[in-house]
């Protein structure tokens, strides 16, 4: 079974803070990590490979430093990795990103299954997976937390719902996005990390020309949505003491909840 895993290198958002004066993100000194959901996609891929054999190709789009994420993925058990890196890719929204990844996957060619994390913690959109699936004309299942069965023609997976789950049979090839499941993602092996650092490491870098895309279709120019403005969310405390009888104070409190759409 040949598996492609889509991963993203992200800033560890729990460490991202805003500069209180400028309202800009302070990115210096923030460590980058493999997006947490993507680690589960990698773990799922490696587990499947252990049972069914095949190869795992990891694909990411990002700046040159995203190479670190690919090395870590190889450390976890991926066979090959591809970094899509080109200044022309920058500023892409999910539309342009899914197009770029889709073209790269077509360029890779041979696959039975594409795995991705449900969403990345820096954007939280959960859009790229389904958009890649649609670009490639593949069936998709999102929010997958368990793969029950694998045959040459289909997989049976569990998809998380708000109030339970669905068991879905999905024909192959397909794209699945995964959420954390029962198994904790494994740590990379040192021996495999060394493999990723060698001169002949199985990591390739592709630019726009390699995957046959034009600049009008990718990056900011190929995007349909644009960020017009960013600003810091308001965190000012109201600091209001409610007064009156117990029931009166509680009444006021519930009114505040309603005003702020908390209930």
């Amino acid at each position, binding site marked *: 079974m040949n598996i492609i895993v889509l991963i993203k290198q992200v800033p560890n*958002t*729990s460490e*991202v*803070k*805003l500069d209180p004066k*400028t309202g*800009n993100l302070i*990115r210096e000194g923030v460590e980058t990590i493999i997006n947490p959901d993507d680690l589960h996609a990698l773990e799922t891929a490696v587990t499947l490979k252990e049972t069914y054999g095949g190869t795992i190709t990891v694909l990411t789009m990002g*700046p040159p430093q995203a190479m670190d994420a690919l090395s870590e993925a190889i450390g976890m058990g991926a066979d090959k990795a591809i970094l899509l890196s080109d200044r022309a890719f920058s500023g892409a929204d999910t*539309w342009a990103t*899914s197009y770029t990844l889709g073209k790269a996957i077509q360029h890779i060619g041979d696959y039975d299954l594409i795995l991705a994390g449900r969403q990345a913690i820096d954007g*939280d*959109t*959960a*859009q790229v*997976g*389904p*958009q890649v*699936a*649609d670009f490639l004309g593949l*069936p*998709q*299942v*999102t*929010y997958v937390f368990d793969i029950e069965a694998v045959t040459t023609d289909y997989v*049976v997976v569990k998809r998380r719902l*708000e109030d*339970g789950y*669905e*068991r*879905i*049979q*999905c024909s192959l090839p397909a794209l699945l996005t995964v959420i954390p499941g029962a198994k904790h993602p494994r740590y990379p092996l040192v021996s495999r990390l060394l493999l990723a650092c060698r001169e002949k490491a199985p990591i390739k870098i592709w630019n726009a020309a390699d995957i046959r895309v034009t600049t009008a279709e990718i990056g*900011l120019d190929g995007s*349909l*949505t*644009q*960020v*017009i*403005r*960013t600003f*810091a*969310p308001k*965190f000012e*405390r*109201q*600091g*209001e*003491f*409610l007064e009156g009888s117990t*029931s009166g*104070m*509680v009444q006021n*409190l*519930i009114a*505040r909840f309603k005003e*702020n*759409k*908390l*209930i």
Partner: protein
Amino acid sequence: MAIWVEVDLCDGCRRCTRACPYDAMEMKDGKARIGDRCTSCGACMDACRNKAILTDAKPRTIPDFSNHKGVWVFAEQRGGQLNRVSVELLGKAQELAKELNHKVAAVLIGDQVSGLAKTLIQFGADTVYLAENTILRDYRTEAYACVLQELVAAHKPNIMLIGATHIGRDLAPRVSRRVGSGLTADCTELSIDSAEGILLQTRPAFGGNVMATIANRFSRPQMATVRPGVMEVIPTPDKEGTVVTHVTQLTDEQIGTKILEIVKEPKTHVDLAEAKVIVAGGRGVNDAAGFELLSDLAAALGAELAGTRVAFEEGWIPASRQVGQTGVTVRPDLYVACGVSGAIQHRAGMMDSKFIVAINKDPYAPIFKVADWGIVGDLFDVVPELTKQLQAACQVMCD
């Protein structure tokens, strides 16, 4: 394509550094300089008074979309039960449609769901596009995406809103790719830009540390998913609407997935770090019996139960529910601290909550300094009263 600063024209006013959404503008020797993070978006060019920032990129032309009319809402139903978020979206759709002088439409897909059309009209839909078929009984990505694509092609809506539920977040990106439209996820605010007549979509990014406003100038419909519970329901009980039946061309062979089983599970406790509402107790709760009161309040609020280090050490809560420096860091929308003094170690774990309520006997407890709303009183009176009134309020809303 590139963008650059004409250094001689730059007066170092820093307007561009503030305007850059990507934090790519740096100041060096009193002049602006463009850093690696630049995506050539042009926000700095608009901000510059001296026209010191230049580009060789040609402006993209915005196509004429004047024939795209209507604000659409995807009416999510499962097993014939309408999801509340769809009704909330109809509320917002009414506002947006009024500003644009457009009509509101709901798209209802399923099998034997026509009974829901009336509800959709009573909450704001002028038109309900109804697609019924046995193969549409359960939600399946490709099937529902196909129906929406057919409807969009036939009626050319201007805006399409979808709830950011597990179904909505699966469906919306699929439809967006198919109809060739940009999509913004998990919006918390939507408005119409009066000058351009476009939809301004505001959403949190970077784990809620930043808010971003996004526009979709180059494609229609302008698509957005919206978080449940954010928009207000606007009932329109006397509204007369029309139901337009749509017959889909879809066949079962075109769909790659089969639903084998749908399993309902009793709500399991979520990870505290992801909880939207948290009720927490500290030393003032006194004992495990006191936590029963908090547990009732948590049930009434749909909240998770948590506590301070003391509450954990006393065995009132498990370690996984301890909030603070040595426990979990949380950032819910609402944090209700009962009998919590608010030691710095505890505050460190809950300061980023959107709204904080403090209930404490001691008016000088430090927790009040970080609270939005404080109630000075005995939690054994206040908490049961709050539970009671919340249950009553919920009853009214559910009726």
